[in-house]
């Protein structure tokens, strides 16, 4: 096996250096070069092609496969492509980080784990491309006029995307298959550079594709009639592009972490030796750690995205937060609550791995009560007083009264308390295997406790006082202050702990020593994440209301309405179950490569 992949050192190094070099040029100057390449090409094209206004869509601009709703079809295919893409873009990100941790600590376990994560994402990669192709074909088939316009707007940029895809594939295969060939010494750094290159290309791919979605939501670089007026850079750099880039980038990591966490959880439950169980327990813990770590800042990325949406069009913002879509935030609350509860539950169960955690178990019940209480406040549609009929009476799709939900002071308190509680669990967990030795430990602990108390008091006070007794402007302002309190807890917690852990004695940790019930949290997380992603996709698309490209191309298809939440939920479920099946297939294929048929005499080696 090894000789097969073995790389001829000198030649190979030169090649790899070239790759790394191009990666640096690429990642640092990609924005610039893509811009120039495309713009030059477009100038050349300008001479011949007259710029066209956006089409006015009529019945002949839409097609259908049999009696299948085109929107439903594209919805599921696109969602599956996005699930898979999020997964394959995210895994290399933390794999490279884990690989680097392995190099830094010299702990081979990290390296093995990183390689195993990578293996899981390899099959997913080709599936991603397959669904991407299917998505593109179905869009061109079902929405030909719309796609013609998109091609008109984005022009050669789509070819840059294709090119990046080639590059991504190439680097991905080299990165994965050269793992053992480039494992030690300087070669490891070559391998790490490949990882960085891979992520540079992958992230760029994501950003390029995001521009299509954000163009549809908030078009830029075109005039009112949809005629292209700017360069590709003006088109891509719309107001929502960067917020969406950040949001998807971070969410992908959380999602990818959750999915491999489930893989590890499953492997752990079916492990047959102590060593295996310990390995997968540790892998599950690490994945969960990644997922939750990436998840915690997500609400803040969400705030930014929402703020930019409001700034772009207050009408769009209110449609998302205060219109009929407001109900959806109840479902979102259920999902996020599930994620937080599962994450906490997992951490609490995981404390049994370490004797040192005994010191903190008394606190858990308080955290649990806070979390569950906050969760209930959050999901109670207390301020929603309208039934569907009342909404219809008020004039159908747009009505004034769902508004109170947009302000939701009580819910802001609940959400922030849940985040603080989760961080506390996390902090306790991190401390449970450490004996802090710094001289100022007592002071540090007191300071930390004070920060918690002040932050919690502040969150509650702001929510109650400003939420209920003042006007909207202050309400919105106070929610920012609440979020700041939460952020301060997180930042202070990480900082103080880092300082306090200096020279701390490590207490023994027994990996694998967690109840099976605790491991089920690892299955709850990816389901909630997957479904949540689908849900957020529904909002993101729906805020365009009856427009394909907001304010530029009207959606005149039979599906130009915002579907109700039940229908949308069923679509999300179809996509999620399909994704679950695909993931099972992916894991099964990954495990096939491990499975060796026993040599007739010997016992099989697992």
């Amino acid at each position, binding site marked *: 096996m090894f000789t097969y992949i073995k790389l001829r050192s000198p030649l190979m190094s030169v090649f790899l250096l070239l790759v790394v070099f191009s990666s640096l040029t690429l990642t640092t100057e990609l924005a610039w070069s893509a811009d120039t390449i495309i713009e030059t090409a477009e100038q050349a094209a300008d001479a011949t092609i007259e710029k066209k206004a956006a089409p006015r869509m009529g019945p002949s601009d839409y097609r259908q496969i049999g009696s299948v709703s085109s929107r439903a079809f594209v919805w599921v295919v696109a969602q599956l492509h996005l699930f898979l893409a999020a997964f394959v873009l995210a895994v290399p990100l933390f794999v490279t980080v884990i690989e680097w941790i392995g190099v830094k600590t010299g702990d081979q376990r990290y390296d093995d784990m990183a390689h195993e994560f990578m293996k899981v994402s390899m099959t997913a990669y080709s599936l991603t491309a397959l669904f991407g192709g299917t998505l593109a074909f179905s869009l061109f088939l079902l929405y030909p006029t719309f796609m013609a316009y998109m091609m008109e707007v984005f022009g050669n940029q789509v070819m840059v995307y294709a090119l990046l895809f080639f590059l991504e594939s190439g680097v991905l295969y080299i990165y994965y298959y050269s793992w053992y060939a480039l494992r030690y010494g300087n070669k490891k750094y070559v391998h790490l550079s490949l990882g960085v290159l891979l992520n540079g290309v992958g992230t760029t791919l994501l950003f390029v594709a995001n521009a299509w979605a954000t163009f549809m939501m908030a078009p830029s670089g075109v005039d009112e009639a949809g005629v292209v007026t700017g360069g590709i850079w003006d088109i891509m750099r719309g107001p929502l592009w960067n917020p969406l880039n950040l949001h998807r980038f971070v969410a992908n990591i959380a999602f990818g972490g959750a999915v491999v966490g489930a893989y590890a959880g499953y492997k752990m439950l079916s492990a047959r030796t102590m060593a295996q169980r310990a390995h997968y327990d540790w892998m599950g813990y690490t994945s969960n750690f990644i997922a939750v770590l990436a998840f915690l800042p997500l609400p803040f990325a969400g705030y930014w995205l929402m703020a930019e949406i409001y700034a772009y069009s207050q009408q769009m913002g*209110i449609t998302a937060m205060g219109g009929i879509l407001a109900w959806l935030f109840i*479902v979102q609350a259920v999902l996020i609550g599930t994620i937080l509860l599962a994450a906490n539950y997992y951490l609490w169960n995981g404390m049994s791995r370490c004797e040192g955690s005994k010191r903190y178990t008394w606190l858990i019940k308080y955290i649990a009560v806070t979390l569950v209480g906050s969760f209930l406040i959050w999901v109670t549609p207390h301020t929603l007083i309208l039934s569907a009929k009342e909404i219809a009476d008020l004039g159908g799709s747009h009505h004034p009264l769902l508004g109170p939900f947009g302000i939701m002071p009580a819910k802001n308190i609940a959400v922030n308390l849940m985040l603080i509680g989760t961080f506390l669990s996390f902090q306790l967990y991190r401390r449970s295997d450490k004996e802090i030795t710094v001289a100022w430990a007592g002071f540090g602990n007191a300071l930390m406790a004070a920060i918690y108390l002040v932050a919690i008091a502040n969150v509650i006070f702001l929510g109650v006082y400003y939420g209920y007794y003042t006007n909207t402007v202050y309400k919105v302002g106070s929610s920012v202050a609440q979020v700041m309190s939460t952020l301060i807890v997180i930042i202070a917690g990480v900082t103080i702990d880092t300082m306090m852990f200096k020279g701390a004695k490590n207490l023994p940790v027994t990996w694998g020593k967690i109840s099976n019930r605790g491991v089920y949290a690892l299955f709850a997380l990816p389901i909630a994440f997957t479904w949540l992603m689908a849900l957020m996709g529904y909002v993101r698309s729906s805020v365009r209301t009856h427009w394909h490209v907001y304010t530029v191309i009207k959606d005149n298809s039979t599906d130009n309405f915002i579907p109700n939440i039940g229908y949308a939920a069923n679509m999300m479920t179809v996509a999620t179950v399909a994704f679950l099946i695909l993931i099972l297939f992916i894991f099964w294929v990954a495990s096939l490569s491990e499975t060796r048929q026993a040599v007739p005499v010997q016992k099989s080696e697992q």
Partner: protein
Amino acid sequence: METMQDEIIKESGGLPIIVKVLSFMLFMILVFTGIANLLPQVEGQAPKDIKVDLGALTMESYIAMGESIFKGKGTCTLCHNNMGRAPDIPVMDMEATALERLKDPQYKGTAKDSESYFRESMIEPSKFIVAGFGKQGETSTMPIIDKAPIELTEVEMGAVIAYLQAKDGGQPTVELPTDAPAVAEKSAASAEPPKPAETAEAVLTKNGCTACHAVLDSPATIGPELKTIGSRLSKEEIRESIINPSAVIAEGFPPIMPPDFANKMIVKELEMVVDFLYQSKAVDSKNSETKEPEKEVSNENDTPKHTETVPEPETDTESNTEQKGE
């Protein structure tokens, strides 16, 4: 805590792990789906293009149309509600508010009355920003109503203005839109001959005379008022003015009266209107007086007087025709 050793050896019995894990996951998915299906189910319908028979439009129906646009297609209530995002138009007395705004020293717009203030608020919202909803000179968060995504037409904006003026008991000053070309379009499209109007009043509204002329309950001032026309012109002259308006142009008015009524009216309709108008003499002015005392009905012959109250009639007609082109 059970000992690990036990846990690992004992294959936990029962169902295979994969079945347990999958059932758990499917159960969760079903819970989420169920919750979403239990919530109120509302669809966000795309606004339907409102087809109005402009000929049959009365001020009441125009106001009602304005109200439904305000709450529906215009999405005004999305922001204009009691949530403090925008002035709470539904509960404010808008006529009074408009006059107040015009008196505001901060006011730098060009509106002169409530109608033009409402129009300006809709198409140039940044001209004046209501205190508490942004700073003067900045861009208002109020969308430009005749642009995407709301895209109200001229007629629809007129309806909204009529609603805003009328909702607190005021008298709308917007003109009912005319439909001259729209009728042409319709009759061209449908082969069947148009039904003759029953009464003279119907002829006048159907042909949009009311858009330009003060007649019936229309206060329009683009053309000469017709409420006292019978004391000015003979039957023949009236007939001639309608069939061939350019033959004699009334003093002080632009020659913009549509020349094609001869092609549109049937003889019976024309005769009804001529008779009706001829009977509208100055002595009959008790009728007009009750309706609009502020319009100087008394100086009926002094037609040029009306001209100054007519701000650029061309633009109005232009926009009317523009709308019909859609």
